[in-house]
């Protein structure tokens, strides 16, 4: 196969046979090592959440009262809390909580954003004006106040948290989707599609949606990180998942805060878990944004940042 070299980038002149997904992974590892590391951590986090029972040596609520407040050791890798529960096992199960809430809320919020953003951005006119003013109104409420009100009405629990966060982020994110749609809509290929008689739903699904996938994916990763953080904050305030269900925010609050000086690992370990996961999701998301942004294509994302 003939290859052309232009600058530092090679172009295959023949049809590329590698799948786009593999191509993406290849570029991720070659051009964005930090992002690739973030991706690996995300995958580890994913598997930890899914296979929590297999990984955790103890149940999340399994008490060994004799081994109360033990420091990290071979038996209890990350120590135990005030009623002798294994901190490592609780963090592993907490990963599942964060995973379920994070992915569900991020996913539903993206659906909401996409629905509002695509319809308002594509149809414009009065409909756009009215809906966007409602979005403005919604966004003028402080997030935390909305959450507190919602939880006090519906009671604490996983699904309540997911619903409230989905709505909160979904409505705010519709702006980003809408602006992406406005750009894509102006492309000649949308008009060309209209000129061959493509119906409106088909234009939306075949010609608009695939071309806003890049911002949608990036939005998803940022939402994922944000939701995990907010869930931790809510659980810390006692508005999230009620105990004894394990949640990183809850662990920080109930056990961590009360025994901070006798058993610092009770606060440090879940805190570290939150930090590592959120940091790496962000790294991964940043790398994805650079790789998926067509303006950055061909520069390997290096020109802008100088390093990773």
């Amino acid at each position: 196969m003939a290859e052309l070299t232009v600058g530092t980038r090679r172009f295959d002149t023949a049809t590329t046979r590698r799948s786009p997904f593999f191509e993406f992974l290849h570029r991720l590892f070659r051009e964005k090592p930090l992002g690739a590391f973030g991706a690996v951590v995300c995958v580890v986090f994913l598997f930890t959440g899914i296979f929590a029972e297999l990984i955790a040596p103890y149940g999340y609520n399994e008490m060994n009262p004799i081994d109360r407040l033990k420091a990290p050791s071979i038996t209890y890798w990350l120590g135990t809390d005030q009623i002798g529960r294994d901190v490592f096992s609780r963090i592993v199960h907490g990963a599942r909580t964060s995973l379920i809430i994070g992915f569900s809320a991020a996913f539903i919020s993206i659906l909401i954003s996409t629905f509002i953003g695509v319809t308002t951005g594509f149809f414009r006119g009065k409909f756009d004006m009215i809906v966007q003013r409602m979005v403005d109104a919604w966004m003028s409420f402080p997030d935390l106040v909305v959450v507190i009100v919602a939880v006090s009405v519906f009671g604490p629990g996983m699904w309540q948290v997911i619903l409230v966060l989905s709505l909160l982020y979904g409505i705010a994110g519709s702006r980003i989707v809408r602006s992406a749609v406005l750009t894509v809509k102006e492309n000649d290929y949308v008009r060309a599609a209209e000129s061959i008689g493509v119906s409106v739903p088909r234009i939306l699904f075949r010609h608009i949606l695939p071309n806003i996938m890049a911002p949608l994916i990036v939005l998803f990763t940022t939402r994922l990180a944000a939701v995990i953080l907010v869930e931790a904050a809510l659980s810390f305030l006692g508005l999230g998942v009620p105990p004894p269900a394990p949640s990183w925010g809850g662990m920080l609050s109930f056990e961590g805060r009360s025994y901070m000086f006798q058993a610092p690992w009770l606060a440090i370990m879940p805190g570290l878990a939150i930090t590592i996961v959120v940091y790496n999701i962000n790294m991964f998301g940043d790398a994805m944004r650079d790789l998926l942004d067509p303006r950055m294509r061909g520069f390997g994302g290096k020109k802008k940042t100088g390093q990773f």
Partner: protein
Amino acid sequence: MTSLLEVRNLKTYFHSDGSVVKAVDGVSFDVRAGETVAVVGESGSGKTVTALSVLRLIPDPPGEIISGEIRFAGRDLLSLSEAEVRKIRGNRIAMIFQEPMTSLNPSLTVGRQVGEPIEIHQRASRKNAWDKCIALLHKVRIPDPEQRANAYPYQFSGGMRQRAMIAMSLACEPELIIADEPTTALDVTVQAQVLHLLKELTRETGAALVIITHDLGVVARYADRVNVMYAGRIVETGQTSEIFNNPKHPYTVGLMNSLPRLDGDVRFALQPIEGHPPDLANLPSGCAFQPRCQYAVDRCLAKPPELSEVNPEHLAACWVDLNVTA
């Protein structure tokens, strides 16, 4: 011979910040079955808006077709519902756009896009559409079409994309193809290939072709008849040879004089048309070309001229008889 497309007194206006831009202001022309008609004029003379109006693709708001009639095969397109027009678009009237680089969807393979009109209008299965699409790509001389149909638009050159667009426009064997400056964005050598291909294929299928261009060379070579547009109006229309040999409107004469000639004196300086095209929201009084016209007389300021017969196949909108004045 009856006309395939009859446009009568078409007016398409755009509303912007309280002022009205008369992009197309009373245009009438015919396209007969199987013939090639050129629409020439400067940028902003309303060529593209005319074409988009025919397919009812004017973005509304801010654009609006104020009045007129667009009769295609006996039916007035302006009175049809959106669903009925959609059945005509891409099926009986197809359009080719100016920018091949942006007129293909980057996230779909070329094959899926070229086959899309077939999927939509002939209710063909994906497999059927794909087979037909490969035949079409073969027809527009894309090498190795079975492989190339799987490629994405970014893997195509400009000329190949425009050929893919031609394949797409031919997919349902339309009776009319409107090509909006199909070669403006291409290299000169590729331009000739693409136009030649377009002309050949339309002759083969018997489709009528409307070429929108500002290139008089293209007009002379490919068009049977010409419509010269200026400031949203047709100022001269007629057989190509008649217009080139016997131009009656000062603007047409100006366009010809601003072209280099191979058979003339090499030292002969080009004569550009002085001034700029008028602001379409604020047209000069009388004839729109009058401020730039060297033959203008008082009458030109008073009243805009209507198209009048030079001979039965040649109309021009000018008060001055160039043969007498010049």
